[in-house]
Structure formats: C-alpha cells, structure tokens
C-alpha cells in the first residue's frame, strides 16, 4: 500500500520542464488529495498534456518533484515502476492494441506484469468490461468498435491494474458528439466511487458536475485554481475569463 489517507495522492512541487530552449512547464505546484477529481483546462499548447504525462513517466522533467502517495518519482527505479503501474492513463486517441482482442487488451498487463493466471485475468477483465457496459464486445477487435466503445475499453484496460490514480488526456475530444456522453457517464461513475482522477478536458458540464477543483493553465503555468463554482462564475484571471468566453462561443 503506497497511498495512505494522510498523504495526498499527487504532490507536484516546483516542476519545470524544457523542450530544448522552450520552457514548457514553469514552476508548477499542485497538490491533489486522495479521492479528489481535478479538471485541467486551458488553451491549446498550454502544457496540459505535458503536465499529466510527467505524472506517469511518459515525459522526463528537468526540475522539481512529483510524489505519488509516498513514492517520489525517479528516486528508486523499483518504486517508480510500482507507482507507474498504479497510475492508469486514458489517451485522446485510445491507443488500444489493434492486433489483440478487447479481452486480450485488458488481460495483457495482468498476465505479463502481475503474472496473473489466464482464468483469473479474464474474469477480472470481464468484470471491468461489464462496468464500462460493453461485456458483449470482449471477443471483438478494437477496430470493430465505435470510438466511444473503444474509449470505454481503454478505461476498462486501465482499471484492470487496480490504479490508485486515473489520468485522462482529453478522453472525449476524438469522439463524435453522440458518443461523448457514454464515456463521460463511465467517468462520472468512477468519480462517484471515489477514484482519484486528473482529467484534461474541455467538457465544462463534466467539470461542473464532477470536479472538486478546476486548474487553468496558460503558457506552461497554472494561472488559476478554484472550485468549479468559483471558476465558472467569477474567474479571477483575465486569461481564464477570455478562455471561458471562447468556450461559450
């Protein structure tokens, strides 16, 4: 057990990252209590994806620390791998494995990382496919599913590893409008079960309903952090105000 109730799920301190000379994350500080739901929004190129990719080791950073539960990333290879395994990630473009069936997409890590026997892995996978409401698609290949179904498989695949933290990077922005809701419903369900979630999204309805903090980023910095009510009604930073205006139009 690496996350305890008194430790925040995520603690980001003075995080700085550069791409060559380009300063992409500037002094980012953020604490996310266990069980909370944080929505990150901001204009394109503001560093949202880069920030959440730093939380599970998909991006390296040059300065600062990221602590997941009690594990500080990069201190110890074995612990870092453990923290990473306990962090689920859902991508904008799903990134399912096209050569594997839906069921095998879900069981691959259970079998190869946790060495779980096949039967056990499959019944766990079926449990989570049921949870995202597509148990009947288990034997299909990803491309035989709609975008919304694929994204739900991706969520089930991440949940199979029993994550302490779920990261979502614009999970609905590659979807046709009629499929957005089925994915958001699954995410809302997860939130109600108490999953710690960090979600980059511009679905403001979801943010209002589910988030307990909204983080607004611009040009690599967090410029506003507030409850959804405050953020949507009385944003204090002018760039947040104009961002919200463009979203409404």
């Amino acid at each position, binding site marked *: 057990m690496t996350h305890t109730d008194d430790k925040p799920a995520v603690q980001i301190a003075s995080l700085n990252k550069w791409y060559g000379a380009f300063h992409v994350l500037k002094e980012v500080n953020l604490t996310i209590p266990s069980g909370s739901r944080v929505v990150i929004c901001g204009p394109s190129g503001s560093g949202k994806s880069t920030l959440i990719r730093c939380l*599970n*080791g*998909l991006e390296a950073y040059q300065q600062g620390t990221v602590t997941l539960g009690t594990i500080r990333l990069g201190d110890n290879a074995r612990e870092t*791998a453990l923290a*990473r*395994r306990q*962090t*689920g*990630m859902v*991508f904008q*473009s799903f*990134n*399912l*494995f*096209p*050569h594997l069936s839906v069921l095998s997409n879900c069981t*691959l*890590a259970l079998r*190869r*990382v946790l060495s779980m026997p096949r039967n056990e892995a499959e019944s766990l996978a079926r449990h989570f496919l049921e949870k995202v409401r597509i148990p009947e698609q288990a034997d299909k*290949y*990803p*491309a*035989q599913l709609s*975008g919304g179904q*694929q994204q739900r498989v*991706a969520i089930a*695949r*991440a949940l199979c*590893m029993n994550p302490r933290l779920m990261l979502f990077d614009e999970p609905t922005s590659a979807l046709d409008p009629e499929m957005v809701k089925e994915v958001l419903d699954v995410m809302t369900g997860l939130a109600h079960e108490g999953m710690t979630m960090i979600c980059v999204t511009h679905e403001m309805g979801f943010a209002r309903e589910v988030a307990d903090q909204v983080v607004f980023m611009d040009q690599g910095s967090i410029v506003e952090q507030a409850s959804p009510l405050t953020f949507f009604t009385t944003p204090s930073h002018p760039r947040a105000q104009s961002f919200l205006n463009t979203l409404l139009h």
Partner: protein
Amino acid sequence: MTILEIWLGILQGFRVTALVTLYGLVFAIPFGLVFGVAQYLTTGPARFVVTSIIEFWRSSAVIILLFVFYYALPLAGLALSAMTVSAMVLGLNIGGYASQAVRAGLQALDRGQKEAGHALGLSRSTILLRIELPQALVAMSPTFINQLIQLVKATSLVSLVTLTDMTFRAKEISQIEYDPVPIYTSLLLAYFIVCYPVALFGRWVERRINPAREAYRAV
C-alpha cells in the same frame, strides 16, 4: 535429349536449390530480426555499428562475396564448405534487406502503442515482443515474401562455387547437348515453378492475417 530428359536433369539440382534456400533462411531470419530490432532500439555509436554491419551484407555484390568467402578465406586458413558459404552469403544479404523491413515496420507504428504499454507498466521487452513486433511483422509480411522469392532466385549464383543446383545442372546439360534454347527455357520455367507457390503462399498468408488488419484499418 528429349525435353523430358532435360527436365529430369535440371530437377536433379532441385535438392541443392531448396537446401541453399532453407539454410539461407536460417541465416536470414535471425539476422533480419535481431539487426532490424537493434537498429530500431539503438542510438549513437551502437547504432552506427549495427548499421555498418547491415550495410556490409546488404550493399555488397553477392557474387563477389561468394568468391571472397569461398576462394579467399581458405588462404587465411578458414575453409568453409560451398553450402555454408552460399547459405551464409545469400542469407545475410537477404537478411540485410529484411532487417530494413523490420525496422521500418517498427518505426511506422503509432507512438501511442508504446506509450500505452508503458502506462500499463509493461517492461520494454514485453512492449517489443507483445505489442510492437507482432504488428510490425504482420504489416511487413508481403515484403518478407518478396524477399523469400528473391532468395530462391539468387540461389542460381551458387553454381559459381561448385554447387550442383538447378542452374549448374542446366549448364552441364548444355555442354553435353549444344541446344541452349530448350535447356534454358526449361530452367526459367523450373524457377518459376518453385517461386510461384511461394507467391501463392504469400497471398494465403496475407488473406489469413487480413481479417484482423481489415478490422483495424476500418477506423
């Protein structure tokens, strides 16, 4: 000599042609896989070494390599049989081409595949073996079949290092019986008869893997 006798004569070389092809694959497949993957994974000086080895086998003229390994190496005290030299030179030459298909297939995969594997906690080797290679090899299978056909045809060079393959037999027959037209026409047909089933096999493989590929191309 009747056409039938010519045919039977050429056929006596079939065993050698088939053996050079098979032993050639024993060199080509591991070389193509290992060096293709190595070129994909390495950077800097290591990559330079890997690339140099691939280029040596891929860019040298096969016929010269055959002569060098068969006639020159014994002078340095290393005598290899004609079969070994032929299988190695032809195999590694085709393997050099195959390695480029392996590397290109790996490089063409969406970066998100590797990232999704990392995000699930899979090790680098599991990602390679379970996610990247299966997709890359399937995508490149038509290229591999082409290279197999090229290997079969390239075996006709081994007659130059004394192996009695189909081409060698045809040359022998044409020395006894000065009638090159039917002899070499028969030889041409003989290679076609060997290669065409390989091409058909390739189509069969493609059809077999296609249901899954069609499925993921559709989106």
